[in-house]
């Protein structure tokens, strides 16, 4: 970080000193719990998902401890099933899906388009409470009664055989779905109707585009998950045999419906991450994003094609070879826009004045890990390879590279990038870089061995394994310990910054996005006066704008 003033950025519409920040608009508990301010709601969500992240993470630690020894270290196979079910359900629905949209999306989408709030502020706070209570209900059900179906709820196991609180857990997830839908409706409407003067569609920051694409997927996919969970509840509770082969039902039908949601849900988790990284990389490379329009089209293509690839989860389910070919082909197609994005991020770095502050550490980590996750995804999209690797640790490693290596890294990139704006405080840069480095090392140590395990034939979801796999499992568990440390560290140095951190200026990174052109933390109405936008969001170097010096030049 440099102290040289960035002369061409006037930080003009910064609120006068007399205007209170959103943090000072009421200090009572009620002023937070029943707020309609999108920024405060973002904070509430952040607290919520942090709680669920550590619940899911605790379950992950139990899994890794269990797998230290071939015969299982701590729990019975039955309990192990419940533990990985908690891990999956909590991490997917209560952390990853809401993670970036409800926190950074809620906080920054209105700021980035120059709006005062989202279109439906009351719906926004309602969505938080639906999310929090629904998720809490589900977690209590799983912990008290035990659900051992895995997060996928496959029939007929979930409908005919599993003994546990499947109904309650499904209802809880169903309820949380409403919160996803509400957020999606809110964001789409906000982007359509509340852009400030001069904020044309192709001046939107890529993060806003990412939120827009994600919202589309949320509103169109989540209802189908709701429908399929509802049918499970109908079969279990009301005896309506929709998936029971004895009555002519079709268990595979459930997989189709489930993955119709759950594959697009992968894009709900990764598109926001792409948006965050597209903000961070230009800022710390001092370069305009390469191929802005292609980045936009690529995200929309990913969202669109993402709806037609669900069958690649079902290559061994007995679906027709024709379906396999169709889904395999389209899965390869998704790689095209994804690769465009990776190339464009790399090209944005070219000839940049790159500085390696913590957000950039995380963002670069994202690009590398996402690429590995994406390439192994191509391997799995190929039917003959997938038939061999289905339900092995190779698949586990692949999607953790996308979701943890990708989404969670990007979540931390965004958290560190926007922390000064959200809180008005500066964190300890050295500690943050150390955590980023540890996360990268810990992540790879945890999950790379799982590729090897899977390739060697280790199936997933087993509580025990043959001794020849032990070396890799121990390596993976060690990595998990490092990863846990890297996740806990930010709690301390970010927490510390709240009390002892230096005061952040309005624009500590000298970024050019609209969200940086107001005070840190922003006032309740975001800007002192409605901003008027005259050009796009990435204006980092002289090639773009002669009046704008590069950081090195200034």
């Amino acid at each position, binding site marked *: 970080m440099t102290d040289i003033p960035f002369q061409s950025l006037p930080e003009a519409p910064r609120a006068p000193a007399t205007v209170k920040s959103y943090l000072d608009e009421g200090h009572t508990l009620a002023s937070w719990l029943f707020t309609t301010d999108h920024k405060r709601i973002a904070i509430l969500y952040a607290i919520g998902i942090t709680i669920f992240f550590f619940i899911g993470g605790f379950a992950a630690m139990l899994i890794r401890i269990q797998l230290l020894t071939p015969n299982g270290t701590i729990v019975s196979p039955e309990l192990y099933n419940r533990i990985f079910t908690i891990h999956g359900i909590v991490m997917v629905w209560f952390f990853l899906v809401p993670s970036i949209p409800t926190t950074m999306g809620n906080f920054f989408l209105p700021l980035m388009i120059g709006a005062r709030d989202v279109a*439906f502020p009351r719906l926004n706070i309602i969505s938080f409470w639906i999310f929090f209570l629904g998720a809490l209900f589900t977690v209590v059900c799983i912990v008290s009664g035990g659900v051992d179906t895995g997060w996928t709820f496959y029939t007929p196991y979930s409908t005919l055989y599993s003994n546990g609180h499947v109904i309650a857990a499904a209802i809880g997830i169903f309820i949380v779905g409403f919160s996803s839908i509400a957020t999606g409706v809110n964001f789409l409407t906000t982007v359509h109707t509340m852009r400030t003067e001069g904020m044309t569609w192709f001046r939107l920051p890529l993060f806003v585009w990412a939120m827009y694409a994600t919202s589309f997927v949320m509103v169109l996919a989540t*209802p189908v998950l709701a429908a399929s969970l509802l049918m499970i509840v*109908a079969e279990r509770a009301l005896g309506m045999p929709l998936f029971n082969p004895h*009555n002519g039902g079709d268990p595979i039908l459930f997989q189709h419906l489930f993955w119709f949601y759950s594959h697009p849900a992968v894009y709900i988790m990764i598109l926001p991450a792409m948006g965050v990284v597209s903000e961070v990389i230009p800022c710390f490379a001092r370069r305009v994003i390469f191929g802005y329009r292609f980045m936009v089209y690529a995200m929309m293509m990913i969202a669109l094609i993402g709806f037609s690839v669900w069958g690649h989860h079902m290559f061994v389910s007995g679906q027709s070879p024709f379906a396999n070919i169709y889904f395999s082909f389209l899965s390869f197609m998704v790689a095209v826009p994804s690769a465009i994005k990776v190339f464009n991020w790399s090209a944005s770095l070219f000839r940049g004045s790159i500085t390696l502050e913590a957000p950039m550490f995380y963002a670069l980590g994202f690009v590398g890990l996402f690429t590995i996750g994406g390439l192994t995804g191509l391997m799995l999209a190929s039917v003959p390879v997938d038939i061999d690797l289905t339900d092995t640790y190779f698949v586990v490693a692949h999607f953790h590279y996308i979701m943890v290596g990708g989404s969670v890294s990007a979540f931390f990139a965004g958290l560190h990038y926007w922390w000064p704006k959200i809180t008005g405080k500066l964190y300890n840069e050295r500690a943050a870089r150390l955590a980023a480095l540890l996360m990268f090392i810990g992540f790879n140590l945890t999950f790379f061995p799982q590729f090897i395990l899977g390739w060697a034939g280790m199936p997933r979801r087993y509580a025990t394994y043959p001794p020849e796999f032990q070396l890799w499992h121990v390596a993976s568990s060690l990595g998990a310990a490092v990863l846990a440390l890297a996740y806990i560290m930010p709690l301390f140095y970010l927490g510390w910054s709240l009390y002892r951190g230096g005061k952040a200026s309005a624009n500590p990174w000298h970024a050019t996005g609209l969200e940086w*052109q107001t005070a840190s933390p922003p006032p309740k109405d975001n800007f002192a*006066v409605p901003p*008027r936008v005259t050009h796009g969001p990435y204006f980092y170097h002289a090639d773009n704008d002669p*009046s704008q010096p590069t950081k090195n030049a200034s």
Partner: protein
Amino acid sequence: MSQVTITSPRDWQEHDLSLAARLGMWIFLATEILFFGGIFCAYAVLRYLNPVGFGIGGHETEILYGALNTFVLATSAVTMTMAAKAADGADYRLIRIGLIATFALGVLFLALKGMEYHDDIVHHLVPGHHFALADPSAEMFWGFYWVLTGLHAIHMSVGLVIIGRAYWLTRQNLKLDELRRNLDVSSLYWHLVDCIWFVIFPVIYLAGRSG
């Protein structure tokens, strides 16, 4: 040159609430269609796999109730539109008449539905141990019957609350624009619930009746 230029101090303008509300409702309706779409899709697949059982099951539905309810709902669509259109001319009396008629027709629908449910229960058409029909996939058809009509009835009940609220709003001192916005959005929802019924009616009541 920066991204933001400040010319003269302006104030925040209210964004176009009417557009936002209608757009938001349309998007929500899309989610509803996907939700029911998932169930209709399951219905289509399972009917394809079990044509005979679905025919036997479908034969037992009460066509009279179904047809009457279709008529009731179609009529309520007219009265709802009447209320929404009356707002254009600020005709409060007609708005209230339209809303009351819609509400009454909605209640009539649910009452008929309740009588039908009663008959179904008496005839042991609830899946489970005492299910009346021998064909196992007929039981599945009746699973769809209960799930689809039940979900629809829940949506109708929500619709009644929305209509009731709209009526209450006509009694408040609202600006006409605000009232119109509310009526527009309410009628969008009401029409969607109608439309869903117009799919449920043929797939549940009509299909299988010719056998």
